[in-house]
Structures are given as structure tokens and as C-alpha cells.
């Protein structure tokens, strides 16, 4: 079972690497952030797969990862709203334009 679960964990890591390619390429900031989000879900999956091997306390790490993944994403949309405190669902307030590198 250890070998199988380890093998599966590696499979998820490979899929995580795919998400990283998207973080590298972008092109938009939303693409990159979504890539990080996907990486987070993959990380949770790896931790679940490792739980029977490394001990079930690993699941606590997974729970925290899930929690903070959501926080990072909310922090992202908030930070990049027009006044730093907005909500993309609101009527006004478009995201801050990029001052520098467009492909950033």
C-alpha cells in the first residue's frame, strides 16, 4: 500500500507541475492565481495520500492548507481591486491597471 500511495502522490505532484507551467506562462494575473489555487488543491491531495504512510496528523496540515488557499485567493481579488478593498461583484471599481510590465 505504501508503494501505491507514494506512486499516486507522485502522480498528483506531476499534475501540480502542470499547474506551475500555467503560473509561469500566465498571461493574466488571474491565470497565475488560478494556477496557484490548483497547486493548493493538489497539495491537499498529496497530504491525504500521505496520511496512511506518515501518520494521520498530516490531515491537520491538509485542513490548514485548504483554509489558507481560500484566504490567499480572496486576498488576491481584494488586493487588486480598484481601492484595495473592493469586490469584483460590485458595480463600480475595475481592477488596478498595471503600471509596469503588461505581461506580469
Amino acid at each position: 500500500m505504501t508503494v501505491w500511495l507514494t506512486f499516486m502522490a507522485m502522480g498528483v505532484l506531476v499534475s501540480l507541475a502542470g499547474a506551475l507551467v500555467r503560473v509561469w506562462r500566465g498571461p493574466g494575473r488571474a491565470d497565475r492565481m488560478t494556477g496557484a489555487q490548483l497547486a493548493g488543491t493538489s497539495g491537499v491531495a498529496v497530504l491525504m495520500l500521505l496520511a496512511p504512510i506518515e501518520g494521520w496528523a498530516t490531515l491537520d496540515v491538509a485542513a490548514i492548507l485548504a483554509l489558507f488557499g481560500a484566504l490567499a485567493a480572496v486576498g488576491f481579488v481584494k488586493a487588486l481591486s480598484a481601492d484595495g478593498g473592493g469586490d469584483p461583484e460590485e458595480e463600480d471599481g475595475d481592477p488596478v491597471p498595471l503600471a509596469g510590465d503588461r505581461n506580469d
Partner: protein
Amino acid sequence: MTWALDATLCAMILAVALATVLGRGVFRAIVFFVVYGLLLALAWVRLDAVDVALAEAAIGAGLTGVLFLAAFGRLARSGADAEPPPGRVNIAAALASAALTGALVWAWVALPLPGRPGPELAEALPRAGVENPVTAVLLNFRAWDTLLESVVLLAALVGLWMLARDEAWTEPLGLPQHVRPGGVMASFGRILPPVGVLVGAYVVYVGADRPGGAFQGGTVLAAVGIVAALAGLVRPPRVTRRAWRAALVAGPAVFLAAGLGGAALGAGFLTLPERIAGSAIFAIEIALALSIAVTLAFLVIGPPETGLEDQ
């Protein structure tokens, strides 16, 4: 087979670190850094250090990432997110970095076999009052480190507040937040806090016997506060609110009082008598978790701002 998993993980950690340093654009670097923290948490699990994995997942991947994202947003609004075009490849820096890595690799090879305080620790652990050895080291054997560390957080926060503008000093902390009523963000802000409080309290509570503790749990509680603030559910307080300032210092104060109590009882500074060590550590952990939660949340939310200065 397990070796292959470690190799894959290490390769990915390195690749992500390189992407953080070498990729164009500050935003890309920040996103890679968030992923980096996440992968490190996996590495800590593989190294049998679940306590560290918890701290890394919460602080390294979570809070630090939010901190940088918020800073990026603020820089973008000041028009300071742009980077200068990359100059020549900095060969001197590359050589120095390679030398540093080389030196550490050499040191690893030259390290003598582990000389560690194993027997002494094993002898001391039953008298520490908690079963989790990491908690025993943090809150009993090396309590002075931990007490100082809790005031390092405080020093950072007071220093951060000094960066506020004078005219903004009496404003609430951070930027004003608003959301569409009944929208996705608002409902998210209502659902997450109860779950987060549960998880945070659980992590603090189990810390005595299993991986977890005040720092990890406090960080989860800080995240709850940040989400509630971002979702407009609660308004961050003003610096002038003394109850909140009391919450900042409660943990270090209880810790220091416990240490002085030991001295007053004749046992010695920071000595927790064996009979009451367990309950004393529990009390310290609860107070510390509260203060850590408030301090970390305030560190991420930022100094008081009017929200009007940008443009």
C-alpha cells in the same frame, strides 16, 4: 520508490524557488512564492516534522502570501509595481551564491555524525508537562526563546504602525473594505469563520500531545480575522482602542507572569513546577494563541489608512 517521491518534490521546490527569483514581474514571483510555501509544507511532512509543516502551511504559504499580495496591490496603486529592466547577468552575485551553496554542501558532507541532546531530552521530557516534544521544547525547555519571539511580533507591529501617516493615525487599521451584499464574498465571509475558529481552537488544543500549538493555531485564528475583515463582516479596530491593544500583549504578559511566578515561588525564572507544568503550559498557550492571532491579523491588515490617498 519513496526516494523518487522525495526527489520529485525537491526538484519542484528548487524549480519554484528559481522561478521566484528569475521570472519577470513581481506578481509572478509572489504567486510562485505562495506555491513554494505549499511545497515546503509537503517537504516537512516527509521530514517527519508535522509541527513545522503546520506552521509552514499556515504562515509560509498562507499569511506571508496574503501579506505580499496585499503589498503588491498597494504598490500597484502607487504605480510602484514596475521593475527596472533586467540589466546584465550579475556574474559576481551568481558566483557568490554558488559558493555559498557549495560551502553548505561541503559542510553537509563534512558534518560529524549527529551529536544531539537525545538522552538529556528523553530524560527531561517526562517532567515537561506535555507529551509533544516540540511543544515541550517551545514552551518549557526553551521558553525564553518563545517569550522573546512573542515580543518580536509585537515589535514588528508597533514598528509597522509607525509607518502610518499622522493624519491617518486615528483611522481604523487597513483599507476600508466593502463587498456586494449577499454576494459570493459576503457569504464566504460568513461561512468560513466558524469553520476556521473550530480548526484553530482544535490545533491549539491538541498541541500538548500531538502536532499543533499556539503558533499554528493562532495563525489559523488570524486567518479567520483577516477573512472576516476582507469580507466586510467586521471592521478592523482603531489603534486607539485599548481593549484590542490589551489583546496584543495578553499572551506575552501571561507568559512573563508565569515565568516570574516561578521565580517568586523560589523555583526560578521561567520554571514551571512539574505538578502544574501541564496546566500552566495550557494557560500560556491559550493566551499566546489569542495574542498571536490578533498580532498576525493586524500585521497583515496593515497600519491605519484613510483609503483616500491613492489617486
